[in-house]
C-alpha cells in the first residue's frame, strides 16, 4: 500500500532529524547537525534491507517515489519564499561562488581519472 512507503519515509525522516537535533545539542551547537543526511543514510539502509527481504512492492515504492518527484517543485516553492530582494545586492557572490568551484573542479578530473584507472579494463 502507498501509505507504507510514505510511513517508511516518515520513519527515516523523523529518526534522522531527531538524531541531528540531539547531535546538535550534544555538541553544544544550536543547529540540526546533519539530520537530513542521516535520514537519507537510514533510508538507503532500510530500503536495501527490505528489498533483500522482498518486502518492497511497487505500491510501497510509489509512496516514496512520489515525494522523490516532488522535490524540485518544493525547491521551486522554497526559492519563491526567500528574501531575494535583499539578496540581489550581493548577487555577485552567487555568480562567483557558483562558477569558481566548477572551474577548479574541471582541473581535478583528468588527474583523478588517471589516478584511479580501473585495472581490470576489458
Amino acid at each position, binding site marked *: 500500500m502507498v501509505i507504507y512507503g510514505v510511513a517508511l519515509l516518515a520513519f*527515516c*525522516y523523523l529518526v534522522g532529524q531527531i538524531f*541531528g537535533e540531539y547531535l546538535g545539542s550534544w*555538541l553544544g*551547537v*544550536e*543547529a*540540526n*547537525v*546533519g*539530520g*537530513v*543526511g*542521516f*535520514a*537519507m*543514510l537510514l*533510508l*538507503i*539502509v532500510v*530500503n*536495501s534491507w527490505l528489498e533483500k527481504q522482498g518486502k518492497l512492492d511497487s505500491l510501497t515504492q510509489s509512496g516514496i*517515489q512520489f*515525494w*522523490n518527484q516532488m*522535490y*524540485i*517543485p*518544493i*525547491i*521551486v*516553492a*522554497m*526559492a*519563491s*519564499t*526567500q*528574501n*531575494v*530582494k*535583499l*539578496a540581489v545586492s*550581493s*548577487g*555577485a*557572490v*552567487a*555568480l562567483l*561562488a*557558483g562558477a*569558481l*568551484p*566548477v572551474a*577548479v*573542479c*574541471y582541473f581535478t*578530473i*583528468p588527474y*583523478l*581519472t588517471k589516478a584511479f584507472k580501473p585495472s581490470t579494463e576489458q
Partner: protein
Amino acid sequence: MEIVLKFLEKNGLVVAFLVVGLMILVADNVSKRLLNKKVPTPAVAIVFGLLLAYVGGTISGGEKGIADVKLFSGMGQLGGSMFRDFAIVSTAFGASILLMRKSGLVGAISLMIGIVVAFFVGLSVAWVMGYHDAVSLTTIGAGACTYIVGPVTGAAIGASSEVIALSIATGVVKATVVAIATPLFAKRIGLDNPHAAMVFGGIMGTNAGVMAGLAATDPKLVPYGALTATFYTGLGCLLCPSVFYLIIRTIV
C-alpha cells in the same frame, strides 16, 4: 471577486500546487524550446521561483518573498522546511548499497573531493566578498555544492533568508555552468568514457547540471555520471551542517 480571493487564500497549499505546476510547465518549455536544453528545467524553474520571490518582496515589502502576498501564502507551506526535508530524504531512495558498491572507491573519492573543493572555494568567495560569520559562510559554501545542500544547511544552522536565497542562487549558477560548459571542455578533460563520467559525476555532483552536461556531450555517459552524482547531495547534506560547520565555527 472577494469570494474568489477569500476562497483561494483558504486553500493556500492547493493553490501553491497549481502555481508551481504552471511554473514548471513554463520552465520546461523555456528550457527545451528557447534554451535548446542547454539550461536544465530545474535550474530555469528555480530562477523563476527567485524572480517570483523578488516580485513578492517588492509588492509586500515583507521578507518571505511571494508568501507575503496573501493569495500565495500556500507557497510558504509547500516550500517550508518540513516538506522540503521530507522530499529531499526521499531522493535517497534511488540509491542503494548495491549502487554504492558499484560506484566504488573512485566514486567515494571523487565525491569527497568534489564536495570539499566546492564548499571551500565557494566559502572563500563569500569571505572575500564580505561575509565573515560562520553560519553565512557555511551556507554559501554549501550552496556551491548544490542548490539543495545550501538551503538544507542554511535552515539547519539558522541562516537568514537572504543568505539562503544566495545559496540557492549559487547552486543554480553552478548547475547552469556545469550544463553549459561540460560539452565545451569534455575533450580537454578526457570525458569520453564511463570511468571518466563517474569521476565527473562525483566531482560536480549537481544532478541536473551533470545530466544535462553529459547528455550534451554523449548521452551514453549519462547513467555513469548519475551513478555517482546521486550520492552527492545526500553526502553534502550530511557533511555541511555537521563536520564542515563545526570546522568553520572554530576557525572564524
